[in-house]
């Protein structure tokens, strides 16, 4: 209201100069007013001038306008309503005229907010994409093979590329305005031939697209794809972050790019803004960009565990095949080893060397050894044996070698190289064996203790023993002393053996016991004592069971014991005769 007041008075005073200039009548009126109003009139004129002068008016309002708006704003929203379309219009104009400055200003604020909402959207997208991918997994490896064949790459290379979700090969920071490369980092083997050219061309392409299609400046290219390589572009106010990627980056990665881009613009704001081609002022940029050189392996996809029937069957087939093979191999090995072992343990055969793979062996063979069965077996089983002759001295072979000399009723055994003979053989035969044993190598000794002699020889031996028998008496004595009794017992034993050897049908015995005496005493006395000596021995023999009818006693003829010293001639001896039975019968 009180703003309007001066406006009214302005319209009044507006007319005043016109009226004054119109003639003297108005001058007079003016004078009248001065007279009537005095000083008030002067002030009124001054006030009127202030209101008319534009500058003064502006100053007047400037002093109070902010407060005035504030006061009015507390009363109603008229100001907001009238200003809103105005501001909106002016903002549009402003943004249209200079979009970059607005977006530059908003960039740090908007970045994070937009990122959040985009992340969520992309995540949803990825979930569905992952599912599609999983469905195609069964065909995956087949596809890789086809890919490998198609591209001429090795299968493993294709698998490597495919099992990576993505790998960022190179990162470029490109100055937006000039298209010049600010900095570049690469994996050990970068993909671009020339990062400078790449940067310039990327920028040119961007320009080309922006020019060719009517797109806004903020709708610039976000990615380019060529084969397995994708160039992702993350534009900022003064620089474009470009990465060359193989595969599909995750949504995380996009936000990493945005963050990196923001970092670049925050840290190198001045350098980017005033960039004149000098890249040396971007200290530490390498580390900033290197963060983007990422690669991500594919997560192993959880597959439903199907029972791999064919796999198991195949495995069984392979295993049983393998088992059968190794089993037969084992058997054949066993047979071979067994063969070699048997051959080696066979007397007279000796394995020198055996080749288990070629199934060949070198063996020594004694001529008397039994090698034929081995030769047959070897030819049957395909073994090869190289024989060499040798003389074996083991007991078995020795006995086999000596066997050739055996006669009927005899046998032999070799034990530790000693030849044991059994059976009955003549003395001559025994002598032969002695020679053989000495001649055959390996025979260490001979034992004939168990060899019985022939009947004739046996009888002769008995007769010899009987002939050698005598009992010596003390002077004038005819009783058999203890020592004599022992000899007499031995004689009985020998006589019994002799009786046993007789053929009772045709043969019989006749014993003569002869008594002797020394030269002392008279002839009569000598005869008596000699007879007594013969009689006592006869009695002893009868006592021992020799039939009395077979025994005759006599005084021995001195002639028979001429060689014996006189003091030993006090003796009695036994003479035995074997007579034919008829003759005996005839005698009886």
């Amino acid at each position, binding site marked *: 209201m009180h703003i309007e007041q001066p406006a009214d008075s302005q319209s009044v005073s507006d007319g005043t100069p016109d009226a004054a200039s119109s003639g003297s009548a108005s001058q007079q009126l003016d004078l009248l007013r001065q007279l009537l109003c005095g000083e008030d009139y002067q002030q009124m004129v001054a006030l009127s001038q202030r209101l008319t002068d534009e500058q003064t008016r502006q100053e007047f309002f400037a002093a109070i306008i902010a407060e005035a708006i504030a006061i009015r704003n507390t009363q109603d929203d008229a100001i907001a309503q009238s200003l809103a379309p105005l501001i909106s219009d002016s903002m549009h104009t402003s943004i249209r005229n200079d979009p970059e400055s607005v977006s530059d200003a908003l960039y740090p604020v908007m970045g994070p907010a937009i990122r959040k909402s985009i992340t969520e959207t992309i995540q949803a997208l990825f979930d569905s994409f992952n599912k599609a991918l999983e469905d195609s997994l069964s065909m995956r490896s087949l596809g890789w093979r086809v890919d490998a064949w198609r591209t001429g790459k090795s299968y493993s290379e294709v698998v490597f590329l495919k099992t990576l979700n993505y790998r960022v090969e190179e990162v470029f920071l490109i100055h*937006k*305005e*000039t298209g*010049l490369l600010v900095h570049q980092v690469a994996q050990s083997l970068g993909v671009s031939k020339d990062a*400078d*050219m790449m940067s310039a061309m990327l920028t040119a392409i961007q*320009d080309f697209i922006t020019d060719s299609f009517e797109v806004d400046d903020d709708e610039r290219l976000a990615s380019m794809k060529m084969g397995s390589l994708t160039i992702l572009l993350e534009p900022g106010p003064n620089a474009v972050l470009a990465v060359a990627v193989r595969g599909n980056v995750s949504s995380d990665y996009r936000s990493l790019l945005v963050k990196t881009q923001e970092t670049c613009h925050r840290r190198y704001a001045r350098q980017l803004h005033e960039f004149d*081609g*000098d890249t040396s002022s971007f200290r530490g940029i390498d580390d900033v960009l290197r963060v983007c050189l990422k690669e991500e392996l594919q997560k192993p996809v959880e597959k439903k565990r199907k029972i791999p029937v064919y796999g198991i069957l195949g495995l069984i087939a392979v295993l049983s095949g393998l088992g059968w093979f190794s089993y037969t191999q084992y058997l054949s090995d066993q047979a071979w080893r067994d063969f070699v072992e048997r051959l080696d343990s066979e007397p007279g055969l000796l394995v020198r060397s055996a080749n288990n793979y070629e199934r060949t062996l070198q063996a020594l063979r004694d001529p008397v050894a039994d090698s034929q069965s081995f030769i047959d077996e070897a030819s049957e089983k395909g073994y090869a044996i190289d024989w060499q002759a040798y003389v074996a001295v083991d007991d078995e072979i020795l006995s086999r070698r000596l066997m050739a000399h055996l006669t009927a009723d005899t046998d032999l055994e070799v034990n530790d190289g000693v030849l044991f003979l059994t059976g009955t053989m003549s003395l001559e035969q025994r002598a032969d064996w002695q020679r053989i044993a000495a001649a055959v190598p390996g025979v260490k000794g001979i034992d004939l203790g168990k060899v019985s002699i022939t009947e004739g020889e046996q009888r002769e031996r008995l007769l010899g023993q009987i002939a050698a028998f005598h009992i010596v008496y003390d002077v004038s004595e005819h009783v058999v002393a203890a020592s004599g009794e022992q000899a007499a017992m031995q004689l009985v034993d020998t006589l019994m053996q002799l009786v046993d050897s007789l053929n009772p049908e045709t043969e019989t015995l006749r014993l003569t016991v002869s008594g002797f005496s020394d030269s002392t005493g008279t002839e009569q006395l000598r005869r008596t004592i000699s007879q007594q000596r013969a009689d006592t021995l006869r009695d002893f023999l009868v006592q021992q069971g020799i039939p009395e009818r077979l025994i005759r006693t006599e005084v021995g003829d001195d002639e028979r014991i001429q060689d014996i010293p006189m003091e030993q001639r006090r003796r009695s001896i036994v003479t035995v005769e074997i007579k034919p039975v008829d003759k005996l019968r005839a005698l009886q």
Partner: protein
Amino acid sequence: MIRKKVCMLGAFSVGKTSLISRYVKSLFSEKYLTTVGVKIEKKTLELNGETIQLMIWDLAGEDDFTQINMSYLRGAAGYILVVDPTRPATFQVARDVLDKVKESNMATPTVVALNKADLKDDWQVDEACLAALREQGCETIETSAKSGEGVEAIFERLTLNMMQ
């Protein structure tokens, strides 16, 4: 390492592409670059002990320079404005182009190439236009893409100007 973007300007067929070819060893195939409409070449040179890398932009094809797309010029640190004095009309084109360019980048160093110096007998220099170009602060150097005369010199001159 200092990198600079340089743009070739001038009427069609004045020898812009020929000058670059003479100056650098081409890397990218012509065909690929024409698709995008621009040809970029790289040249590294040593000047006053500093290594400078020039990224030289050239418009592919025979564009009408009066309708030049300004995005192509964006960020350029220097221009080589090529004139073919055997065709006096190209002087006027050069003037127009320069006017347009200077609208946005007043101080960008520009060197004018009076090309086809090997055909000097056929030259018909538009002296008025030439004076106008010099007035705008452009140096002029006579070049021949054919003989190689002045080619190194003009790029070095421009580089020196850009480095100041």
